């Protein structure tokens, strides 16, 4: 019996060695180790053995089984690895072909700039105020210290609808509306983004429709130095921490003192280039201390409170920030233009 077992082992190992794939291996396993397999067949004769022989033969049988199982397992693993390798080979693709990105749209650059500026000021405790684009002459001009026939009205030719109703030429009427709504309460801290309209022939730097963002702060003891501090903080967040500001005396009917604000050129950092006409500075906004008459018309006592206001053109900031050469792009909505802003 022992011999039969040894023979089985030798034969089995030879056959297993020759197995070509996982299926043959499986077939051999059944034939040799299965319930009706060769090993079982031999072991059926165990009953005829003597009590002394039985454990000896049993041990041999276990050894044979173990040896065969080990080989089967080794072969199985080898076949599996070969199979995996084949599969990986077959499934190999060209990873340099383009991925399929989900469609992504772009926020309009003007909106991007407005939201960025809004966020800066919201972080400084401002709320965002809005007002109508179709305004009354009173809010757009008179309440801003621009009575009818004031020479400064020449500065901004307007789109009138009737004698008293016009497209707002500035976001400043929102200042008056906010002041009146506040009913004399302080502090007021708002920024007002919005569309404005002026009669201008469109060219690379002019558009009859454009956007402004305006800020207004009213409280007790607001100083011009606070205005400078606020603007410096703002421009540094928008244009970078090295940015400097420079104020030049100017004139707006609704502020006194008034100033134009320059920032260090975004292109050359102040050393002088074509963009800043070699001056190192770019004019970006107008500002000043709220005119006492405007405070009065807004329902505040200029002896009790003071305030500052500032305003800037959104298109101008966007042109500078992104290096855009023509303001008309903002309103033409060429997809090749818009698509460039679909990223941070």
């Amino acid at each position: 019996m022992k011999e039969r077992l040894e023979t089985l082992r030798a034969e089995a190992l030879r056959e297993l060695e020759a197995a070509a794939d996982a299926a043959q291996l499986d077939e051999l396993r059944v034939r040799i180790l299965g319930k009706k397999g060769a090993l079982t067949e031999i072991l059926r004769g165990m009953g005829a053995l003597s009590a002394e022989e039985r454990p000896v033969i049993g041990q041999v049988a276990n050894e044979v089984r173990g040896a065969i199982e080990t080989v089967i397992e080794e072969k199985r693993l080898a076949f599996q690895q070969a199979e995996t390798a084949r599969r990986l080979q077959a499934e190999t693709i060209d990873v340099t072909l383009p991925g399929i990105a989900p469609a992504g749209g772009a926020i309009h650059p003007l909106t991007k700039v407005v939201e960025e500026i809004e966020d800066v000021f919201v972080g400084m405790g401002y709320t965002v105020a809005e007002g109508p684009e179709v305004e009354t002459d009173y809010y757009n001009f008179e309440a801003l210290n621009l009575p009818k026939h004031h020479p400064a009205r020449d500065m901004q030719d307007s789109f009138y609808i009737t004698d008293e109703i016009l497209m707002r030429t500035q976001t400043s009427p929102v200042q008056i509306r906010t002041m009146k709504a506040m009913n004399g309460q302080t502090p007021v801290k708002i920024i007002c983004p919005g569309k404005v309209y002026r009669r201008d022939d469109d060219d690379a730097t002019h558009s009859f429709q454009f956007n402004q963002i305006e800020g207004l702060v009213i409280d007790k003891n607001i100083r011009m130095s606070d205005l400078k501090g606020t603007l410096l903080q703002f421009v540094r967040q928008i244009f970078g921490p090295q940015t400097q500001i420079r104020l030049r005396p100017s004139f707006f009917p609704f502020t006194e003192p008034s100033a134009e604000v320059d920032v260090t050129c975004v292109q050359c950092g102040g050393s002088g280039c074509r963009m800043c006409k070699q001056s190192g500075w770019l004019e970006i906004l107008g500002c000043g201390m709220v005119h006492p008459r405007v405070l009065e018309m807004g329902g505040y006592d200029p002896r009790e409170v003071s305030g500052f206001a500032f305003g800037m053109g959104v298109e101008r900031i966007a042109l500078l920030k992104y290096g855009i050469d023509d303001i008309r792009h903002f309103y033409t909505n060429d997809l090749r233009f818009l698509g460039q802003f679909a990223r941070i």
Partner: protein
Amino acid sequence: MNVSYQWLKEYIALDGLSPEELAEKLTRGGIEVDGAQPRGGALELVTVGFVKAKRKHPDADKLNVCTVDVGGPEELQIVCGAPNVDAGQLVPVAQVGAKLPGGLKIKRAKLRGVESLGMICSAKELGINDKLLPKEQQEGILVLPEGSEIGSPIAELLGLDDVVLELDLTPNRSDCLSLLGVAYELGALTGHPVRLPETAVHAASEQASERVAVGIAAQEACPHYAARYIKGVRVAPSPQWLQNRLIAAGVRPINNIVDITNYVLLEYGQPLHAFDADTVKGGRLDVRYAQPGERLTTLDGQARKLEAHMLVVADGERPVALAGVMGGADTEVTGGTVNIVLESACFDGAVVRRTSRELGLRSESSVRFEKQVDPARVIPALDRAASLMAELAGGLVADGIVQAGEPCIEPVTVQASLARINGLLGTTLSNLEVKTILGRLDFRYTLLEGDIYEVQVPSRRGDIALDVDVIEEIARLHGYDNIPTTPIEGATTPGGLSVAQRIRRALRQRMTGAGLHEAITYSFTSPARTALLPELAGDATPVRLAMPMSEERSVLRTGLVPGLLELAVYNRNRSAERVAVFEIGSVYLTDEATLTRQPQEKPRLAGLLTGARPAAWNAKPAAPDFYTAKGLVDAALELLGLADKAVYEPAAPQHMHPGRTAAVLLETERGRERVGYVGQLHPDEQRTHDLEDTYVFELELEPLCDAADFGIVYRQLPRYPSSRRDLAVVVDSGVAAGSLKASIAATAGAWLESVEVFDVYTGERLGAGKKSVALALVYRHPERTLTDEEIAELQERVVGELAHSFDAHLRA
């Protein structure tokens, strides 16, 4: 205002500041200098030459060979092509080695075989704006006045070694519309005193009042009118230096009398007018409003019809000048004029402005009156001009000034305390610093108890009326750069966005996340374009601009889709395969034919999809359809927590595909409200715009914002399994899937968790006019597992109800 650097030196020491440094100083002080334009420059080797002889060029008809004396040891032979060159003329000669303003370098040359040792120059070649020269000097070479010294530098003679500063004045600083004004400004910046011009009048014994009388019949429009009488003038060209200064300022020299009025206008900012006294009828001038039907031919040769609100100066018979705007042709000073009535007056700015605007006639005079002139300069300017007429035109000034009214000088005093100054600016200025600044401004003041400055504002500074005006003066002279930078003190405030603002931002993110670009289109559009809209707003009449720039941009938009359509066409014409855009913006609605109040501004969200998304290398191009567009509306509504409150109903608004358009309704407390539409553009419109299938939607944002649900409430995750049952029913193809869903939801009871359509099939096997709708119903009980029997019972109910309501039967 153009200011000659050399001329300005007459009134104030410039300390060797270069024109560029001067420009920078003025600009930093608040008077913006747009440019510093050199005139001709020093023009070395360009001198006065005398043409001794002229002969024809032997080989060229149009050329002359001139012999020119330039004061050197040798005479020069110069070939000249100008037809007006002649022997006996004094001319500008650019000698060999000279460089002209245009960049031209003069070299020894041969012209058609004849040697030429220089060039005789035209005004233009010397850098003079020839439009400012008399006609006869614009053509050909410039002929210089007799008596010009041969060999002397031309730059000196013509005042070309000068720089013109171009001031861009803000409307409040009309005081700088004069050289003296600029000198005062510079005085404030540098601390130097201003030198006033000589105005001594040596009058004759004859009384002016015997020659002319003046009167004012419109006191509020002309508080002060003054005149002098000058007799025996010789009208001739002005001396060269005076012409040079006028040209530098951009004013064309005419004759000595007119030039003197312009010269003094530039010097003092006070407009003057000279009448030919012998053409003034009745020996008097009156300021009055025009009478209906009156006409006046102004100096520019235009016959003007006058209106009753226009102010004129009239003699005994007729208007002779448009007050403060322009004189009349009938009383113009001409070559034959001998006696002059010289006017200096104060006219009301608003009256002048209105007349000037209505007639489209702006002059150096009207510009200044509009912006207010210094009333204290009426008499000094008059005297200055009279003395110049005596000096330069040989006139005899009659004694006395005839005048009506009186100088309208109202003393302005402003009080500002040191504490107020520092409080508003955030500075720590001392009394000494404030006093120094006020002194430099030449403002008189008294220091009252409590460090209060009582400032007497000089009449030349009509822009200063309030304490803040004085504080601005102090601030700008102290230097805006010297104001510190501080953080705001006081209570902090919470900042933030409103609900509507947050929603607009969220919608933008959602739409761009879905692959749409954000567009911003114009608010102005054409009436034809506004008509291209489904009636979302009811029948709104678009608001029309009073004076549009073009018909294409003449009305306010009443919807956003037309603008998106315009940009779709634009982009398709530029080979964009797919246009997927949205816009958030306002439309303007009114029910008034003529506005008496502002229109309503309604924020909207609109979108447009057309063209297939370009094919990827492994996928087919995907064209949008109705459901792509509807999906975007769904996404917007879902974002706002309104998915359950939205209802779509078939709709057929104009310009839309009647079978592929839905109205979007919102369930509100007030019932169902229409908030928008989504659908395909009508094929006719698509054809008109040369577009493929185009899908659009437009939603009112206000009702959506009002209803938006910000409250996310967590629902516990289910603990018991759900059971899905699919159901395919055959119904008439007109039955809306939405109604089937609604019926199922109503019938299946509380344990129905969801019901979704997962397939719609039409085909021959079902028969014509039929479709099969496959629905997935998911049941779940919150507290136990449902039994098959329970579910079967519910399904039976659902099927029964569908059969009953829709004649639906289960698909075999």
